[in-house]
């Protein structure tokens, strides 16, 4: 049906290479999320798929057909923009029906499809309003409505929720998830909100500087990040990284330590370590637990944030490194006190530098 294949896709503006060879395989009906820091090329990649940007090199196929040179209207995609991009001079009804009007659909069929879309998005009561009379969330619904009436094979979303407030964002996030289940269409969703990425995605593509860093399910990426960048990008608060010395290597077992860390053996998922070398040890804040005495790490408490459900403790280690620990449940820690922490080596990650 409408799987999407990106093969060696590249995009340059003059001498600026923005997308530097991207390969992604997207199955029919999959929900794929592109994440990455600002300026990494997420929107550009999405717009290349939509046909709004030329492809400099590589091959893009949708539903098994190479579409490099097809204009947007012949690609069978619908797109929802960050700015909503609904037409200010048309009523909501006309906006939602725009694609059908262009396609010359009959009045009766149009009315039926618009009604159906309005029902799914619960906006029947808005149909006769003008866009200027709508709230941000309602405008976004209209934009999504316009996308779904044509029943496209592929939906593209470019940060559709970033202009909404937190509560509304969560509502709409759930609704987009529901919509995906109802329609079963292929969806590509660009965001830099990791909660959206983790909750919505079947598959996450992490991008940086126009290159794919890792592709996988949310949990794969969370538990087995392929490199430092992915490890640091996903998860909140971000993963702690300690500069450590490698003292011994035995197959995939790497023994590391530093001034603040007692020697510990970590199972490496990637290669490239040698005894006497340096490495980065990654520990998620959630996997640190306080101990009464001893512990693998010792630090002085610089700041605490009590969130009720958890307590985020900001520590300074003996060698001056900053470490964040997210401790389960509410707890009180005096600032300036020493705290010993321990962690499960199986939950730690090690990366070569």
């Amino acid at each position, binding site marked *: 049906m409408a799987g999407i294949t990106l093969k060696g896709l590249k995009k340059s503006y003059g001498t600026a290479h923005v997308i530097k060879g991207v390969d992604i395989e997207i199955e029919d009906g999959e929900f794929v999320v592109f994440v990455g820091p600002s300026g990494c090329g997420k929107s550009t990649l999405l717009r290349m798929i939509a046909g709004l940007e030329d492809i400099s090199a590589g091959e893009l196929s949708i539903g098994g057909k190479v579409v490099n040179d097809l204009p947007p209207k012949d690609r069978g995609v619908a797109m929802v923009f960050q700015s909503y991009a609904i*037409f200010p001079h048309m009523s909501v009804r006309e906006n939602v029906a725009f*694609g059908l009007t262009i*396609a010359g659909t009959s009045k009766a069929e149009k009315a039926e499809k618009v009604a159906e879309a309005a029902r799914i998005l619960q906006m029947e009561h808005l149909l006769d309003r003008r866009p200027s009379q709508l709230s941000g969330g309602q405008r976004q619904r209209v934009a999504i409505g316009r996308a779904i009436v*044509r029943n496209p094979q592929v939906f593209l979303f470019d940060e559709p929720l970033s202009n909404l407030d937190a509560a509304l964002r969560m509502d709409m996030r759930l609704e987009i998830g529901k919509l995906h289940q109802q329609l079963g269409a292929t969806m590509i969703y660009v965001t830099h909100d990791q909660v959206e990425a983790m909750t919505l995605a079947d598959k996450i593509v992490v991008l940086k500087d126009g290159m794919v860093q890792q592709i996988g399910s949310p949990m794969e990426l969370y538990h087995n990040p392929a490199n430092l960048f992915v490890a640091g990008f996903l998860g909140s608060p971000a993963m702690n990284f300690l500069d450590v010395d490698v003292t011994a290597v035995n197959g995939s077992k790497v023994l590391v330590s530093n001034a603040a860390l007692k020697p510990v053996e970590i199972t490496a998922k990637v290669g490239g370590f040698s005894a006497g070398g340096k490495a980065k040890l990654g520990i998620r804040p959630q996997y640190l637990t306080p101990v009464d005495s001893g512990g693998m790490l010792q630090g002085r408490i610089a700041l605490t944030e009590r969130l009720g459900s958890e307590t985020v403790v900001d520590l300074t280690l003996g060698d001056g490194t900053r470490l964040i620990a997210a401790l389960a449940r509410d707890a009180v820690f005096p600032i300036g006190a020493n705290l010993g922490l321990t962690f499960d080596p199986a939950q730690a990650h090690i990366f070569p530098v």
Partner: protein
Amino acid sequence: MAQISQDNRGLRLVVRYTVLCLIAAIFSFPLIFMVISSLKPSQQLLADAHSFRALLPVGDISLNNYFDAFKRAPVALFVFNSVLVTGVTVIASLAVCSAAAFAFAFVKWKGRDLALTVILATLIVPFETIAIPLLLEASKLPWIGLDGITWGWLNSYRVQIVPFIADGLTIYLFVQYFKDLPGELIEAARVEGASWFAIYRRVVMPLSGPVLATAAILKFLVMYNQYLWPIMVTQEEQYRPVMVGLQYFFQLNRAWGEIMAYLSLITVPVLAFYLYLQKAFIASIASTGVKG
């Protein structure tokens, strides 16, 4: 606090309206003088010109000047010619220039930037420099009409219309406006399956009220005030516009009263056009919410 700011606002309003009234007075002064004078005999008109009487309908007031003006020149024909030529040119110009600007602003094609540069360069060429070559050109152009193929466009409406349909300034106005429209609207329409023409007609034009009004006013003024070109290309009264018609009143005996009557008459279409555009302009801003 509230009291003070209230007073302040009242004062500000007074100042604002005073200034506006002053400006309105300055601008309407010539118009009032023209209309009032058109009702007076020439001698009284000249005598009154040195006092406030010039702006007041006092003394020997009548419509005689108007009757005399109609006797002296085919006023109705001149007004008709001007309105026809101006109207057709304005409408054709809006259509052609906005379509051209659309291609420059939204469609990517080879040589686009160069072509736009060339068009903009024409802005610095004064019409007078191309008038003679244009005249020679126009006198040789073919036309297919009721008489079959004829050569030469002189003495016609088309020779007054066609050269002014496309112009750099109008295209430039549209290009600038189009570039300020939110690009995602155009992209959304493209993804929704709209052809370039559909985008032009259904998305861009409905949002272009303000620039359409601006371009229409500028073109209207140029066309309605045409003088040099019509003199060059029309020898017969039948095709001549209002400004050329003014000559009739400066021959032999110069009757200022009649001149004022004639000017008042030919001002009517201008005012009507302004009032219409003003309404359309405000309506378009209100309905689209796109800034001007």
